[in-house]
């Protein structure tokens, strides 16, 4: 039907194809659940190592079954719905936090043979297919859409609890997530700009983004590192993870939007938090670290896709945990300043720089001159921005000093 679509669906869709798609869906769901379980264990274990503690060590070897034990316990707990809550929305909210993470994970290429221009296609049960559940045309945009939908779970959970602290927490959370969505989008934009195929057309599908990075043209350095940093910071803020976890600032907000949740519904929030971390890590791997692409050392090519993807994902997740253990929480005004005054202007500037380089390459300009002119323009813009900021602060200060009259 469409160029970059899964070759599985391009031919006749018979029973075998249907079963393959169904199998992929089940496997994706299974991977999500098991990975979440392991991620919780991983985070607790690494954090305790970094803090010189032992961490979970009772259930199973190295405490690896701790999450399972916690899960069983939490299912048996009483499920409270506060009297003052909006029951319908209260029940809906945990589900809404969970679904976007699952859908996003379905669009991540988790394996496949990307060497020799194979484009991630593997052969199974007599059909060629991609090792991802879906590869829609609008790929990254669907991922962004899901990340913007994820706000609802948090927002509605806080509102429907019928209590002040959860509401404040959810207002904070949603303001933060909406603010950082723009920075997140700018990071993605840089990736889409550089990843063009032979015909010079960029594609939005996750599969072609990974293909464009083969074998070593990782977007990490092709986009010039800055979009990666922007994306990682914005992703951390989107996930409400430390140092941007103002949502759960316990000293101020008790337990934030999940204060009133108990039992299984609380467990769903907890799972969704970690599943979102994994999904975001997988997106970082796909967009910037070459996804499942990597050298085939021995044996069949399809096996190494999984290996490289897993190693890269663990590295990113370790970085998330490491950040959590090392960086103190920022203040709310610092959080908003970082998002609106640093990441977004920098992201827009960097996007224009990349556009300039691409247009220059098409028009045959001297690349050194292009970059130099772009750098001068960026510095000039930064200077103007600083000047405007300083002027507005000076005027505000003068207006405060003035005894009467209108602030202008």
């Amino acid at each position, binding site marked *: *039907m469409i160029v970059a679509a899964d070759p599985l669906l391009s031919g006749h869709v018979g029973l075998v194809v249907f079963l393959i798609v169904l199998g992929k869906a089940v496997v994706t769901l299974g991977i999500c659940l098991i990975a979440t379980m392991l991620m919780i264990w991983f985070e607790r274990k690494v954090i305790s190592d970094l803090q010189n503690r032992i961490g979970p060590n009772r259930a199973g070897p190295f405490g690896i079954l701790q999450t399972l034990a916690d899960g069983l316990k939490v299912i048996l707990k009483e499920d409270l719905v506060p009297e003052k809550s909006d029951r*319908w929305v209260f029940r809906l909210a945990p589900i809404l936090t969970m679904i976007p993470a699952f859908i996003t994970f379905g669009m991540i290429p988790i394996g496949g043979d990307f060497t020799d221009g194979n484009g991630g296609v593997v052969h199974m049960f007599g059909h060629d297919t991609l090792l991802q559940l879906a590869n829609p045309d*609008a790929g990254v945009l669907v991922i962004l859409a899901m990340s913007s939908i994820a706000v609802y779970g948090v927002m509605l959970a806080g509102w429907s609890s019928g209590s002040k602290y959860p509401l404040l927490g959810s207002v904070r959370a949603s303001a933060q997530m909406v603010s950082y969505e723009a920075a997140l989008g700018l990071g993605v934009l840089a990736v889409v700009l550089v990843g063009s195929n032979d015909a010079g057309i960029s594609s939005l599908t996750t599969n072609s983004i990974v293909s464009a990075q083969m074998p070593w043209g990782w977007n990490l350095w092709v986009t010039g590192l800055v979009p990666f940093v922007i994306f990682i910071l914005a992703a951390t803020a989107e996930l409400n993870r430390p140092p941007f976890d103002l949502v759960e600032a316990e000293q101020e907000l008790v337990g934030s939007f999940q204060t009133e949740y108990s039992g299984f519904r609380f467990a769903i929030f907890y799972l969704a938090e970690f599943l979102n971390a994994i999904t975001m890590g997988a997106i970082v791997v796909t967009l910037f670290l070459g996804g499942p692409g990597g050298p085939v050392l021995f044996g069949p090519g399809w096996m190494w896709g999984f290996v490289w993807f897993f190693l890269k994902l663990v590295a990113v997740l370790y970085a998330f945990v490491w950040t959590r253990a090392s960086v103190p929480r920022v203040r709310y005004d610092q959080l908003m300043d970082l998002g609106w005054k640093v990441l977004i202007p920098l992201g827009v500037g960097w996007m224009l720089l990349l556009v300039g380089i691409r247009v220059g390459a098409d028009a045959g300009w001297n690349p050194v001159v292009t970059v130099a002119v772009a750098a001068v323009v960026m510095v000039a813009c930064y200077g103007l921005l600083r000047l405007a900021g300083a002027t507005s602060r000076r005027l505000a200060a003068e207006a405060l000093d003035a005894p009467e009259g209108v602030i202008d």
Partner: protein
Amino acid sequence: MEWVVFVLGALICALGAFGVVTRSNPVHAALSLIGTFFGIAVLFIAQDAEFLAAVQVIVYAGSIVVLFLFVIMLLGVDTAEDLEVEPITGQRTAAVVAGVAIAAVLIFVVVAGAITGATSSAAPIDTDVANPVQIGRVLFTDYLWAFEITSILLVIAVVGAVTLARHRPDGMVDDELVDELPAPAVVAVDEGEVAT
């Protein structure tokens, strides 16, 4: 198959729209609105317009309704009073008349469109080219003028909002701290009704 998808999508849209009008709780109404937007996204996908579907979800469901909910949550719109008060006299009658008129125009357009047989005024979709590429080409060539005008309109709106929010008469500047917390979903319960 196409019929099944269409009927399901249309049902989601219609039920959502019905919910927006009938629910007395503004948050429930906003949630129904999201349902409608998702139904429209499904219909877009059924027409091979995946890009439009994604943008529909990002812009409408992901941003605009989030802002609606923000305002509802921050201002704490009173659920019980809302339906009783009519801020403008005769607005209900006016709304019904306007609704009927718009429905009539829409039906006329559908009927008339079927008579002319014209299917698309811009460009037919080409299933061999990824549709972000197609939309990009049309948008930045034939419709560049409209595109730029729209962007200027948006910039003016943002600048206007910032100007309105920042330039206040002296008497309004932080003289009274509002120490009221935003109202959570308890209003209706307090008045003896269960908000479900």
